[in-house]
């Protein structure tokens, strides 16, 4: 299993860098992931998205539709793409510690 080392901490991740054991996730992990993938500093808006995705996933065992992210955070769609240059899947979901979704992402 590949390991990702950020600032001296090691995480088991899949080939695309998604966390293997979603339970080891915490906000420090999120910050480290964000710093590593071009998202940069986590602002309040970033946190609102990430926390919502995390909660939704815990309840439903899947990532939310981006519409739900918009409606629950009050952010506009285009803002989400600006906040997470890698997009909602490889950006926000990864930072939120979700496993990689299937499909063209």
């Amino acid at each position, binding site marked *: 299993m590949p390991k990702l080392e950020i600032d001296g901490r090691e995480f088991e991740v*899949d*080939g*695309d*860098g*998604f966390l293997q054991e979603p339970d080891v996730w915490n906000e420090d992990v999120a910050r480290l992931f964000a710093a590593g*993938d*071009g998202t940069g500093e986590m602002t309040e808006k970033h946190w609102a998205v990430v926390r919502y995705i995390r909660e939704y996933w815990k309840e439903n065992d*899947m*990532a939310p*539709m*981006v*519409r739900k992210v918009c*409606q629950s955070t009050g952010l506009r*769609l*285009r803002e989400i793409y600006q906040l997470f*240059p*890698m*997009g*909602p*899947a*490889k950006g926000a979901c990864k930072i939120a510690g979700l496993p*990689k*979704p*299937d*499909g*063209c*992402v």
Partner: protein
Amino acid sequence: MAGIKMLSPDRKRALRVLENRLGGRLLTHLNSCVHCGLCGKSCHYYLKYGDPRFIPGNKVDQISRLYRRYFSPLGRILPAWVGARDLDEETIEEMVDVLFGGCTMCGRCSVHCSIGVDVPFLVRTARTMLMELGLVPKGLQSTIDTSVNTGNNMAIPQKELVDTLEWLEEDLRMEVGDESAAIPLDKAGQRLLYTLNPREPKFFPLSISAVAKIMYAAGESWTISTHCYDVTNYAFLSGDDEAARGLAGRLCDEVMKLKAEQLLLAECGHGFRAIRWEGPTWFGKAYPYPVLSVVELIAEYVRSGLIRLDPSLNAERVTLHDPCNLVRAGGVIEEQRYVLARAASDFVEMSPNRVDNYCCGGGGGQLSMGEYRDRRIEAGEIKADQIRRTGARMVATPCHNCIDQLMELNQVYELNVEIKTVAEIVADALVLGKQEN
């Protein structure tokens, strides 16, 4: 002499795939490669790594050496003489690594092959053999399983899809200032049945909005089925014909059910190829209705004057990435550039382009096979350099799979570009309102 009889049942099944298909086309291509190696530099993997495993001729050999071993006279008697190989552990391991992990089935090598060997055709046949051995990489297989089991490759519940499309419809009405603007759902008797890549409603719905806006401007009669809409066909990529036929068949049934006149495919390279071109082979007959890409439709709108574009609304430099499955293997070559040249004021080609274009690196199912992620990104450097040389700020590509790979290349190679579908760029250039004549 260990023949087929000595093999385990799954290996026998794998060889039976080969045996059952040893008709004209396969037989011909299996017997044609002369190992000249001149194809190496046509492959983005070989260009990047200089590793002989990635020379297309060696990819051909992954399957032709099995053919020689079990089905050719000299290979049966003197396997070592003709480089024939037993279907053993080591052979299989190299097949998986090279054919799943080192090939996007982009077909660039075939166009330039000194003989004319159809390399992706052979690679796909070999993948079918590996599928019989249960060796399709996990991410690719689970994407297929999700499609088969839930009706779309992201397991989107129908209600979620409907909510998202209704939400987009609201947006569309606001944007065009017309309460009658619509994204018609499950409407029977429309001219076009449109499909989606599940990635669009789930994560990137701007491309749906763009198409809806274009349809609105053209006054088109269209609908989306909320029961069956997934344009992707990952089973085409894994070589699983039975699943591929099933997935394509569902869409065909939906066309009949909704009595649409034509099936309109979203900007999805492999989906277009699988449904438009490969489906008839799986069904053994042509479709009773036309199947076209939304790119072809938009080009027709522009050409006939049904929609009007103002290129100054896209003032930044735009370049175009040609998806292999839509262009080289799909024949949609000029339509997208015809449209972009009229939708953007500074459209430039990357070089090489059209049929000679390099794969983005994410094709052939690579995007779903996480185990080869690093290779995918490294081999994508060729594409990144192509984009950089154009000086473009925006890259259009009519394929969601390419888009995702390009987004990653954009970040890794710091290209500082925006990546969009063709429809998104067209929607931004649309001039609404009455035509002046």
